[in-house]
């Protein structure tokens, strides 16, 4: 029982982690907190849904198409919304992304309606026996895909030239610029990557909670995850997401009714009081 609760917590935590990862990537690079991350996830998942349901594309190609469209959309948002705001106060940028989130949600509702949908992702929902615990195949899928994605991103940021230049730009924009790194292009790519990650999160969330124009609100849970991990740390986002997911899951079973919904926020407030820089956060002084 306990292990099952933990495993389902890890699975939902992985989704929080992927959304938090989107927050963190963009924040690291451009110090923008993208409050539209959850809504990008919604669009990504709905693109897969449309391709599968309306255009009868098999799941894998449908997924790839959605990822590509989302990458373009991410770049577009950066070019049209964020670039004109470069140099503006953080407040303006936050308002812009909140507005973007509302806009995306409304457009999503207009296109796909306000109903709830689902699509067959070829993932069956069978319990799988692993020793004494029965794990769900969906949970295993979610955890496996998340791990794969993290490994891929880790490799990308540490081993490829583009990735390293992105890492450099996020650490020190001016120095990176002076070293000949196209900072604008880096930002644009970061937006593309986080939109792609959002699509993966959306597809993984669908078997658990279905598609709905307001599914992006799950992003609100990812925010404490990102803060917990130390806003700006990729491993932090992952660990933060999983901690939130698991603790929420346990709170739902062992604490009185109502704690489950607010548990993520209790953790958030606790972290801000005790260790405001988060678990993996470093005291950053370079930006001061």
């Amino acid at each position: 029982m306990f292990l099952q609760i933990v495993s389902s917590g890890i699975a939902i935590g992985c989704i929080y982690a992927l959304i938090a990862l989107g927050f963190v990537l963009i924040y690291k690079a451009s110090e923008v907190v993208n409050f539209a991350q959850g809504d990008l996830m919604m669009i990504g998942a709905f693109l897969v849904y449309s391709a599968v349901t309306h255009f009868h594309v098999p799941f894998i190609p449908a997924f790839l198409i959605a990822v590509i469209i989302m990458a373009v959309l991410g770049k577009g948002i950066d070019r049209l919304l964020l670039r004109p705001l470069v140099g503006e106060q953080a407040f303006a940028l936050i308002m812009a992304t909140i507005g973007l989130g509302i806009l995306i949600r409304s457009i999503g509702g207009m296109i796909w309606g306000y109903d709830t949908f689902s699509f067959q992702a070829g993932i069956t929902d069978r319990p799988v026996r692993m020793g004494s615990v029965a794990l769900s195949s969906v949970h295993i899928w979610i955890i496996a895909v998340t791990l794969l994605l993290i490994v891929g991103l880790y490799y990308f940021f540490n081993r490829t030239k583009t990735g390293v230049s992105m890492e450099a730009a996020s650490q020190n924009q001016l120095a990176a610029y002076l070293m000949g790194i196209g900072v604008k292009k880096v930002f644009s790519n970061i937006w593309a990557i986080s939109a792609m990650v959002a699509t993966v999160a959306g597809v993984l969330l669908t078997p658990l909670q279905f598609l709905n124009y307001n599914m992006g609100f799950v992003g609100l849970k990812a925010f404490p995850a990102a803060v917990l991990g130390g806003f700006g740390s990729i491993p932090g986002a992952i660990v933060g997401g999983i901690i939130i997911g698991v603790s929420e899951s346990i709170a739902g079973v062992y604490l009185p009714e109502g704690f489950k919904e607010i548990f993520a926020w209790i953790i958030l407030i606790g972290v801000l009081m005790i260790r405001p820089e988060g678990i993996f956060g470093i005291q950053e002084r370079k930006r001061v």
Partner: protein
Amino acid sequence: MSITRRTVFLIAAAIFVLAFCPGLSLAEVGVTKDEIKIGGILDQSGPIAFMGKAVSDGSKMYFQYINDKGGVHGRKINYIVEDDGYQPPRAVQAVKKLTSRDQVFCIFSVLGSAQCNAMYPILESQGIPLVLPATQNQDMGVPPRKYLFLGDPTYTLQGKIALEYIVEDKGIKSPKVACIFQDDTPGHDWRNGVRIGARHYGLDVLELPFKRGSVDFGSQMAKCKDEGVTHVLAWALVREPGIMMKEAQRLNYKPTWIWAAPSLSKKVLELAGDALDFNSDIYGTSIWSDAARDKTPSLQLVQDCIDKYGWGNYDEPLFLYGFQSAMTLVEGLNRAGKDLTREGLIKAFETFDNYDNGILAPITWGPNKRAGGDSVKMFEVKDGEWHAMQQGWRFTTIKD
């Protein structure tokens, strides 16, 4: 002398008017020689616009049919629908507009019990009936309010019957029951029904509320499994049942499910997907007939109207719901007779004794009874669809 003559003249004039213009002297607001004005308030643009539109469309179609047949006692029905965007304050504005500017005869079909409660004092002060609110909340009919006529079987009744079904029909004398419900008025109504049933049979119930809009039911399902719950009685809408049943599947947990009426839709089963293959022990308390299989004359009439007028959707339960609401109202107007008044309509409704319009559960109203529905139909899932398990309607013997 002159005063007496004037009095005589006035009396004569009054007698003249009363004798030769009966329509004028007895005319009720909203009723003319050839028209009855009816006002409805349903969401047409807000969060549940798809529901409001389906219901009002169904009613419109039946009124169109009746008007084509010559109306009620020669009067055509003029059905005016106002949009409240599912907001009680706007519903109150709408009711003011309908009663003062349009001068409707009665308010018919209001979507949302909060809306009904908000507008009721205005209607009561003017003696205007509020007929057939499109809700199943217990407080619409209990305690009875003179001008408010609820037709639907309440959620409390549904909760009672759900438990009664397990114990009496299935013969399971000591089931381990959990009640999952949305933590608001309709959900509480259902829980109250389950509580009443549990008290009647001396059972304990594990109560698990959830917040409106919840998408994660992992902990509720884990608790049910852990406590060895055999029967889950749940009040939810459309998205939640699928999530819960899939979650149970992930936990390898197979309870018997009984859902309240709002979850008895195709969409719910569609979303549940392969969870139905895993566990198809799924039931529901339905307030209407099995439209796909029952062939009552009324359901046939809906189909005929759709064919005749070229619009409408037979597969949309809420369209059928709006259609049958209009049938019940027209039955009341018919019974109220040619000299139609509001008090007359109320008297007419109070004569409804097990009135069966062929779609909704039969309605019984009386001088001190305003919750009309006393029965439901048990539905079960077979081959991925909802099927009625019985021909007639099921009443309860459990007292409150």
